[in-house]
């Protein structure tokens, strides 16, 4: 049985017609392309749950890494269409079939995104640096032997290497590079990916984090985490660098306070973003 934790549909409101997402019957498919699944739905639900914030954020450039069927980027474009009509969308996938299927899915819904067949954001890293306002990623996160990562075909849709972290760990520094000063990242993770460690790692780069959706299915426990640059944390991250080098005691203090704060936001106290 599927159970949902910490999640409610109350945000859907009663009569808001603009809360559209991609329709499964209009989503294209191909045997070698990942079909929308619990993780895809959880990510779109997270975006819906955060939609009001997204509208206020007024993103210019939104990007998806690993777009698969196109379900997520199409849904994002549809849910922002009315209020943020100027937003520009870019989606990448390493699988040539996936970008092709995404193109059809977008077309079937009457929305546009620029598609690039590439490894994460290879080719975009220089010129797109600092320009992405919203990035969404449902990465291959399933723990697998390392040599299954990045193989051709459907396996690359889920194969995540050790702890499912291989591709995630490559994406995070690239996301940091591409995100604008006020950029947000929505990332799908599994408990086995060690999401709190991911948050600590992002914290060292100056990002705050919040779990937008947590969902347990038969097979997996999913967290959709939102990251955003936080000024205080950035200052802290800058300060802790020299401390790390000189005083090991300081490192422990910092880590402990980070873990403490982590538990604070996990319990939902930090709701400003």
């Amino acid at each position, binding site marked *: 049985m599927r159970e949902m934790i910490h999640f409610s549909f109350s945000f859907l409101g009663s009569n808001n017609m603009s809360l559209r997402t991609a329709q499964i019957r209009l989503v294209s498919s191909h045997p070698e392309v990942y079909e929308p699944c619990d993780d895809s739905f959880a990510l779109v639900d997270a975006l819906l749950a955060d939609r009001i914030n997204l509208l206020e954020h007024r993103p210019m450039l939104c990007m998806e890494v690993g777009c698969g069927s196109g379900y997520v980027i199409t849904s994002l474009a549809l849910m922002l269409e009315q209020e943020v009509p100027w937003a520009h969308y870019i989606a990448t996938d390493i699988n040539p079939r996936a970008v092709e299927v995404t*193109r059809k899915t977008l077309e079937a819904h009457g929305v546009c995104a620029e*598609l*690039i067949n590439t490894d994460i954001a290879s*080719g975009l890293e*220089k*010129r*797109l640096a600092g320009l992405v306002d919203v990035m969404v990623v449902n990465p291959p996160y399933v723990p697998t032997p390392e040599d299954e990562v990045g193989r051709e075909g459907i396996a690359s849709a889920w194969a995540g290497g050790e702890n499912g972290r291989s591709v995630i760990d490559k994406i995070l520094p690239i996301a940091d590079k591409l995100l604008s000063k006020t950029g947000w990242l929505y990332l799908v993770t599994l408990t086995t990916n060690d999401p709190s460690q991911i948050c600590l790692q992002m914290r060292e780069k100056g990002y705050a984090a919040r779990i937008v959706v947590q969902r347990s299915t038969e097979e997996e426990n999913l967290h959709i985490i939102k990251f955003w640059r936080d000024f205080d944390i950035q200052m802290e991250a800058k300060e802790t660098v020299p401390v790390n080098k000189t005083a090991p005691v300081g490192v422990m203090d910092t880590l402990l306070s980070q873990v403490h704060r982590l538990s604070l936001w996990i319990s939902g106290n930090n709701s400003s973003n």
Partner: protein
Amino acid sequence: MRLLTHNMLSSNIKGVTNGFPLRIEVEKAIEKQVDFNPDFLKNMFPKIDWKALLDASRTMGYAELPDETPDSSMLDSDEFLRKFHHALLELHLEEGALVCPETGRKFPVNKGIPNMLLHEDEV
């Protein structure tokens, strides 16, 4: 592929230092109408490499952009913004290739989608 995307893409081949801008080879260019939004254009303008956009738009058969990098006062001109809008967002490279300016390696563009995947010896 819009020219905005072209303006953001560089050759990603290992060892290449001058990978921007990619030269465009056109087999088929198309136009798709996009709603005009001056705010988007004004925000994007400082991020755009003018020379790359100018050359790309000419290659695509559109010759209306000014030669000289416009200064930001041009952003008050509706006429200029409309041309900028057309070049940046409405011209699409549908079929063709992007060519690395340093190595000549071609990245194919099919159905509007550039393929930037590298061969093993290029990574």
